[in-house]
């Protein structure tokens, strides 16, 4: 089967998102379920004069390790993966799960241990990315499992995924450039602010972002994309927030999460379901109870929650914050083995104030105010 959207997705990922150049070493990372797009990507990377290095996993491998591995095995760092992280020029990573719940019955403590063992490499690649030595892009390839999580048929889900990446547009790259210019203006506006206050049902949260960089995520490192994010000052987050969507981490779901912050730290965490898992994750390490990211979701082509953070955090009209590690390029100092995004829908009955001024209401920035316009 040849879906012309596969070819277009490969073109957008290789030429636009990752900007693959002649001679680049490019890892193509996914599961065997992504075979059709992996072949399209492989060919596209060749066409760019670069060297494709497939890094393909079979679903079930991580499960075996988590179930049967001893301490030493769980914390083992594969030297080949380490070599990849130090050596390659580009990583193209595609999610493609056959069963998103296969780790549901794994002991959370073991999950957390494996998560910690992966931390050094994760930080190294983020460092190399921040230093401009490595480009990467994360995307999702539609599978039945993901469609099921999104409560859609496979055909509907394919349309959703490809639509969210603007692949139905005659010129997806032009569309992403135009979109990027628009959200650059939002990031520029936010960069002039110090204090943000988010108010919604069950939420009144204050955070200080002074001196931190607001970064437009406009189709380079994620596809789909569409958010502006920063890292709040580590001790500045105060108040409470209620997350309207279930929080999903390592396929585990936690419902109706409410967090109370004092001086940047979570001092109270409750959930109607999965509270124990929530506490386990927050207790993972020192940085896991602090905020590493705060962001506005801005992609209107992602209108619904699909239980996949790659999409959910970009839902137009939401904000999200992440517990745990910060992206170095945003200026955040928090470090943790955790990076858990929690999403709050602001599309009705919600307001955001910047330095005391109302700048956002019911899912939209208020245009034409404060000396900026769109």
């Amino acid at each position, binding site marked *: 089967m040849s879906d012309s959207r596969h070819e277009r997705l490969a073109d957008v990922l290789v030429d636009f998102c990752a900007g693959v150049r002649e001679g680049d070493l490019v890892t193509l990372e996914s599961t065997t379920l992504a*075979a059709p797009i992996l072949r399209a990507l*492989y060919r596209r990377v060749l066409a760019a004069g670069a060297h494709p*290095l*497939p890094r*393909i*996993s*079979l679903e079930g491998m991580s499960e075996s390790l988590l179930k049967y591995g001893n301490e030493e095995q769980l914390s083992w760092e*594969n030297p*080949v993966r380490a*070599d990849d992280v130090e050596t390659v020029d580009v990583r193209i990573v595609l999610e493609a799960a056959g069963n998103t719940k296969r780790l549901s019955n794994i002991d959370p403590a073991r999950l957390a241990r494996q998560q910690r063992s992966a931390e050094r490499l994760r930080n190294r690649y983020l460092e190399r990315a921040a230093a401009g030595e490595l480009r990467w892009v994360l995307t999702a390839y539609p599978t039945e499992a993901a469609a099921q999580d999104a409560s859609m048929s496979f055909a509907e889900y394919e349309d959703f995924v490809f639509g969210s990446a603007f692949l139905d547009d005659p010129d997806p790259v032009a569309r992403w450039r135009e979109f990027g210019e628009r959200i650059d203006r939002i990031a520029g506006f936010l960069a002039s602010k110090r204090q943000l206050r988010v108010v919604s049902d069950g939420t009144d949260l204050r955070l200080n972002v002074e001196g931190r960089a607001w970064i437009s995520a406009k189709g380079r490192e994620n596809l789909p994309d569409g958010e502006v994010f920063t890292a709040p000052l580590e001790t500045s987050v105060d108040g409470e927030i209620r997350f309207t969507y279930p929080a999903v981490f390592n396929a585990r779901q936690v419902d109706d999460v409410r967090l109370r912050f004092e001086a940047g730290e979570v001092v109270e965490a409750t959930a109607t379901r999965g509270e124990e898992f929530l506490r386990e994750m927050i207790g993972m390490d020192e940085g896991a109870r602090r905020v590493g990211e705060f962001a506005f979701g801005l992609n209107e082509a992602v209108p619904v929650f699909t239980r996949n953070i790659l999409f959910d955090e970009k839902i137009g009209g939401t904000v999200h914050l992440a517990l745990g590690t910060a992206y170095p390029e945003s200026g955040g100092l928090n470090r943790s083995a955790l990076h858990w995004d929690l999403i709050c829908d602001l599309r009705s009955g919600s307001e955001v104030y910047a330095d005391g001024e109302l700048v956002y209401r019911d899912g939209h920035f208020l245009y034409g105010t404060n000396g900026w316009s769109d």
Partner: protein
Amino acid sequence: MDPRYERLAEVVLDHSLALKPGQVLRIEAEAVAAPLFLPLHREAIKRGAHAYAAIDLGGLKELLVAHGSEDQLSFVSPIALREMDTIDAAITIWSETNTRSFSRADAERRKRQLAADQQLAMRRRDRISRGEIRWCGTLCPTDAHAQDADMSLEEYEDFVFRACHVLDSDPVGHWRRIGERLQARAAELGTVRELRIVGEDTDLAVVVEGRTWRPAYGIQNLPDGEVYTSPVETGINGTIRFGFPAIFGGREVDDARLRFEDGRVVASEAAGGEPYLKALLGMDEGAAAAGEIAFGLNYEIDRFTRNILFDEKIGGTMHLALGMGFEDLGGRNRSALHLDLICDLRREGEVYADGELIWRSGSFLREPEPARDIAHVR
């Protein structure tokens, strides 16, 4: 789930690799090998090893050969080269989704891409021969291989698992016993000066004096079951007919007949693919001389299936390879070719060792004297 895959995994890990806790194990396979790959990975984890995957998708190398630039075709990843130095054990699962996918590829370009792959294989081969890593090649049944064998997948699975003896009550014990027996056989053959092979249209004298015979009992291949050496390069005379097709580079030569004089092929014919056979013989200086002579001794492999992993071990056959010899067995022939040709001796074959009849109709006439010590044999 079919328990036979797990049992094959156990034989590979416990017998072939003797895998130990803390060892780094690389498992190389195509995605289609998942039914064997997953139990191998899981059982390796249970044994305390650090197992990881190097998975290929059918069709990627084909894209490289079709579309790659010169630079891309001959590229060897520095990461892949370094990787060979970090592993303690390796498994290759030779399973394919399509065994003919390179049939229409440009032969020159395919050769260049294979030469790049070969650099990695040589690096691994060096470490294996220095005893630094253990390696085993095996196969997970797929429709493509079943099709080549003229079988259904179910029939082919039965064939493969029988050949690997995974249904025995103690498969590892079986392969150890085969090891003892073949070691003794190899030791006995090591005292022979000349073999004479007599069969249908076949009367060939092969000097093996001073060469080492090696027993193959499931360490580097599964299934296994052969003893082999490299014959004396100038010591082959007579004629031989190979009843089974010979396959090289995905192309077949049927019913080949060769005449040797002083170790070199002086006449060749084949019922099918004769021009290809002659082209192979002319490939380089060493291509017209033999690099290997062997007895196939796995009697669960009772038919030709177009896969050399199995075919060269068919119980009751001998095979002779034109081209590259085994240096560590005393072989001196060098060539880019290693073409295994299989001679069926099951019906009317006889083999004489220095004039004494030792084999008739597909089997040795008597068991070898038990060897005293097999501890040094790998």
